[in-house]
């Protein structure tokens, strides 16, 4: 019963100052709208930009790195065990880029429950022979279906059909490389490998990642085509790319498996640390702007409630004289503040969602981002939850001090003062 009366009085006070109440609620509405729209837009952009790299990047990549053997024979000799051995001009020994035992490693990985999928890859340095000049490039031999499934390969094939790559002696050229070679789809390009083998490959599509440097150099062919180009057997693989169910497991798993398989392993966090930093900072900035908006609207509510209390001193005095205690008066004004926050916040979330839909319709076409047609917006419920919670918290604090002031009003002073 007590609360119904308090709510009733709060309602009457708000209706008596309808215009001010509406203005205060509009302030909250506006800031929540901006908060949700801004975060949605910012994070939409963030995840799109990150996706450019992260989607294509394996969570763990296994490979053999060519480097000097860290265990030189002299270190293993008992005779020189306790001496300081200095060897100059160490060179890497003839080791192969290929992963030893790649088939059993892949079988082991496929049985691991943490692994979503794996895709083997060969990276081959080549020259594209264009007339009298040679352009350097890299041909990536991939397992087409797996690459499409795990690393959204098909999204970045902007012309031609990626499935045609399954035929031998076909290639999908990076857009930049294709432009430089003036190679159209259906044309045949000549490729020379580092070992000197010459192969003719038919262009079946263009690949465009959005990262210009990458597209100038990288082209794609099937695993078997590249193995044939290099004259290597079917077990020849230079990289094993792993996608996990949970990305955060990548660093410890990379370490663990590198030890077991005795090869090098990179995890996505280490390789792409700079992307995460950028994302975090962008997110932080948008939160800061959003929360600033909310705090400003909180001051608006604070002002309006203060005004209301000055105007309603008589009412407060009468309420106290007829038996309302300080707590009741406090609750009345907190109720007013929270109602403004709740109504403004709820409408703000709705308008924020509509603003998101609006931004989503704005065309955004750029050469660098072939898969994007309109501005990306993230509709993650998290932002709505944060926005809603914050609208209540700020309005509560905006109401807290005025309500305390109102509850401290001395009725005698007001009633006698007239």
């Amino acid at each position, binding site marked *: 019963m007590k609360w119904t009366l308090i709510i009733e009085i709060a309602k009457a006070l708000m209706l008596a100052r309808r215009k001010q109440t509406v203005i205060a609620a509009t302030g909250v509405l506006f800031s929540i709208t901006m908060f949700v729209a801004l975060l949605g837009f910012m994070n939409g952009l963030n995840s799109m930009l990150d996706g450019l790299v992260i989607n294509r990047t394996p969570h763990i990549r296994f490979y053999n790195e060519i480097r000097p053997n860290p265990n030189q024979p002299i270190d293993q000799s008992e005779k020189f065990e306790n001496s300081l051995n200095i060897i100059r001009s160490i060179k890497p020994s003839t080791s192969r880029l290929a992963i030893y035992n790649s088939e059993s490693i892949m079988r082991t990985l496929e049985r691991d429950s943490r692994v979503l999928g794996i895709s083997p890859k060969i990276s081959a340095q080549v020259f594209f022979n264009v007339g009298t000049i040679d352009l350097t490039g890299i041909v990536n031999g991939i397992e087409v279906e797996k690459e499409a499934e795990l690393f959204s390969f098909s999204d970045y094939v902007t012309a031609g059909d990626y499935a045609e790559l399954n035929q031998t002696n076909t290639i999908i050229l990076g857009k930049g490389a294709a432009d430089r070679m003036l190679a159209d789809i259906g044309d045949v390009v000549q490729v020379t490998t580092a070992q000197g083998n010459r192969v003719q490959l038919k262009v079946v599509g263009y690949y465009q990642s959005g990262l210009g440097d990458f597209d100038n150099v990288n082209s794609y062919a099937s695993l078997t085509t590249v193995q044939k180009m290099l004259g290597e057997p079917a077990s020849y693989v230079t990289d094993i790319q792993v996608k996990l169910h949970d990305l955060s497991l990548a660093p410890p798993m990379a370490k663990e498996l590198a030890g077991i398989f005795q090869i090098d392993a990179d995890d996505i966090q280490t390789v792409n640390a700079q992307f995460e930093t950028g994302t975090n900072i962008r997110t932080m900035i948008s939160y800061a702007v959003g929360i600033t908006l909310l705090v400003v609207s909180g001051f608006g509510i604070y002002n309006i409630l203060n005004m209301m209390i000055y105007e309603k001193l008589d009412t407060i005095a*009468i309420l106290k004289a007829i038996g309302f205690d300080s707590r009741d008066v406090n609750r009345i004004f907190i109720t007013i503040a929270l109602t403004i926050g709740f109504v403004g916040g709820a409408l703000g979330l709705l308008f924020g969602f509509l603003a998101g839909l609006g931004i989503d319709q704005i065309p955004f076409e750029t050469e660098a981002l072939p898969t994007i047609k309109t501005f990306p917006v993230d509709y993650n419920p998290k932002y709505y939850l944060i926005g809603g919670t914050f609208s209540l918290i700020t309005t509560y604090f905006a109401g807290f001090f005025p309500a305390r002031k109102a509850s401290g009003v001395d009725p005698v002073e007001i009633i006698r003062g007239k």
Partner: protein
Amino acid sequence: MNAFETPVLEAKNIDKFFYNPTETQVLKKVSFTIKRGEFVSVVGKSGCGKSTLLYILSTMDTDYRGELSLDGELISGKSSDYLSKLRNEKIGFVFQFHYLLNEFSVLENVMIPGLKLGKYAREELEHRAIEKLRIFDMQDHAKKKANQLSGGQKQRVAIARALINDPLLIMGDEPTGNLDKKNSDIVYNKFKELAADFGQTMLIVTHDPEFAEGTDRIIEMEDGRVIRQ
């Protein structure tokens, strides 16, 4: 001791000081009792401390020395929340200027102290409020907003509101002070009626000698002292 002998209000040696700008004693050893069913008026020149006394008696002003008992219960030094509850239940108020809450209808104004007390259900309270308004011939205005009434009408509604919880005591601070002759007479007659027909205990501060003459007992004050009672 039966209920009729318990004084409704008992003040013993009430001292009150104002500290702003300098220390001045406004009430000096004020003592008196009010018995059940008495209609008492407090008179005196302006500045003699009669309003100050009333606000101390009303429990709203707690900054005083001395002992104050309401219905046999010592209330000096009680918490302000407890006093609010007491005020709601046992004291009805009528002020000189502050009549009603303009945000509410006449009926709601009368009901609010009852809703706060929570003794009766809403429907019953509404019925009771109409009954109280009927005493003052205001039942036809029940649905109007408070600020649509004239001063005299507002004051009559304010008295009805003071009655809603069947209080032990009604206090008035110059309830007719701000009204014209005609309205002042109406309000005065209503007080008389309450005293005669309902045996309502009342303590009214006034400087209107005519009003005071019609009461059972006059407490006269001068310079912070009771000089005649």
